[in-house]
């Protein structure tokens, strides 16, 4: 089942001002997995996914999406940035933000029409935000903003979903809602990559995991590699998985 490679990262090295943030990363993400990227602060988790998305240019190495460079495959990939990366006081509504998910398939200049609006409304319904569609986005709670971002990615109907800390600062209800949607995506055969912070929930939520701390520590199925050895190598302190599970 897990033969086809969705994302292939080769010898990837990224540096900010000569300081390496990612060092020689090799990584293959099989199609259809729900993968967590875990690692301490400053481990380069966000940088790794931004490099996958061609937002950051690496100083060496390459990324392939289903065997081709990102530029040719951007319609296959949906990105959910960190909630804090945008200004939520921007003058626009929830529906409008979700509509932005259709812009990629529309391409340059063409405007969204009735079809795009319908898709956006469906995505809003899926994340349980339909009644907030005409809300100004600054008047949404943190969890609601995160759902809007998720809805925007769902509209893209991509094969790969890449998310930067979608559970950060959301309440338990929203976390449940989001993880249910991610599991549904996996059921549909989509590949989901999530930068994740809460080690406790890794075995429950994910089936695939990558340990990252500037270098790749390990990658594989949660069953096989989510153990104290890798946690200790990644975080540098003694972890006991038995406590976590």
């Amino acid at each position, binding site marked *: 089942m897990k033969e086809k490679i969705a994302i292939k990262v080769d010898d990837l090295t990224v540096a900010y001002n000569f300081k390496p943030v990612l060092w020689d990363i090799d990584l293959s993400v099989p199609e259809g997995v729900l993968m967590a990227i875990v690692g301490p602060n400053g481990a380069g988790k966000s940088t790794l996914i931004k490099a996958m*998305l*061609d*937002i950051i240019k690496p100083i060496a190495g390459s990324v392939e999406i289903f065997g081709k460079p990102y530029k040719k495959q951007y319609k296959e990939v949906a990105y959910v940035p960190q909630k804090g990366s945008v*200004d939520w006081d921007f*003058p*626009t509504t929830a529906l409008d933000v979700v509509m*932005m998910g259709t*812009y990629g398939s529309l391409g340059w*200049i063409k405007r969204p029409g009735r079809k795009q609006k319908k898709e956006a409304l469906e995505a809003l319904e899926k994340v349980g935000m339909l009644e907030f569609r005409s809300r100004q986005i600054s008047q949404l709670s943190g969890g609601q903003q995160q759902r809007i971002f998720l809805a925007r990615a769902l509209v893209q109907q991509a094969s790969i979903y890449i998310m930067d800390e979608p559970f950060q600062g959301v309440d338990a209800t929203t976390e449940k809602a989001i993880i249910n949607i991610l599991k549904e995506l996996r059921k549909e055969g989509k590949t989901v990559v999530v930068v994740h912070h809460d080690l406790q929930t890794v075995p429950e939520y994910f089936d695939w995991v990558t340990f990252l701390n500037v270098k790749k520590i390990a990658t594989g199925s949660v069953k096989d590699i989510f153990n104290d050895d890798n946690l200790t190598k990644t975080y540098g302190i003694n972890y006991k998985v038995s406590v976590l599970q």
Partner: protein
Amino acid sequence: MSVQEYFSLVFTDYTLRTITLGTAILGIVCGMLGSFAVLRKQSLLGDAISHAALPGIVIAFLITGAKNSNTLLVGALISGLIGTFWIKGIITKTHLKSDTALGLILSLFFGFGMLLLTFVQKMPNAQQAGLDKYLFGQAATLVESDVWLMGGVMLIALVVLVVFWKEFKLQHFDADYTKSLGFNTRFLDVVMTALIVLSIVIGLQTVGVVLMSAMLLAPAAAARQWTNNLAVMIFLAAVFGALSGIFGTAISATSNNLSTGPVIVLIAAFFVVVSFIFSPGRGLLFKQIRQWKNRNDLQLHKTLHFMYEIAKTHQDISHPHAVKILNNFQGYTKNSLKSLADREYITVDGPMWSLTPKGYEKAINLYNQQDNLLND
């Protein structure tokens, strides 16, 4: 001349018409493009660009010896663009933060420009060049060809904004996401920056290097207060910009010693102040009023809740209780009892009060609302 006379003359008098049209168009262009600068938190970029334009003006004069504005503005455009690219270069290639880069380029170019300016003014026969008018602008020197130029820039800006509307909106909200969708954000960035540089350059003659950034920011900041819709915001900013231009020109034309540029900027600032205080959603006044009202409501709700706690121990919720027993609770005053009675939550009969069914209902819902808030 009074302001009324001005407005009766503006359609017939050639000079007045030219200047008014020029400042109004300038206001529209700056309002539209300034909205994007404000939303992108690049308010200072305009300031840096306008200051960076000064050496270009003087160098253009030194090379060509021309005094006509179009030649000098080409010089301004070139040095403004060079300043902008240096700023972007510094931000991407060094550790320096954008505010440092902006300040550095602003003072470097402006200092160099001032140096050249004093040099030129000491040259024999250069005195009458009047280059120093570009510091604070001089609307009276506008001629018809300048207005045509401004009109051309306005048209270009309008067409570009309409054509790339979706892309600009997306990029200004979430640049990384825009990239991930396959859009060329560098192209969008260059187009928007070029438009902003153009709008600054056409304003230098009227408003001047020093105050130009206010023309970009003030109408946009004022407009943001009144709406949560980007298109409406840009339209309002254009209107505020145009009105600033028209009224600024009117006021300065009617009193001899006021120069136009600063008056226009002050009118724009007036719009900002009024908007920040009186706009309904975000204005300070209404925010304060809402806060007072909330505080009052909260106080009443506390009292009502206390009454509910007492009343619910009785079979008949409207069973009368003595006002005295509320004394243990600090939240009540005669006024608050009266407010509650006015809202028909309670009835007061001499020293006794009793909860109405409506008040009981309301008190229960207070709880539910709280639950709803927590569930959000």
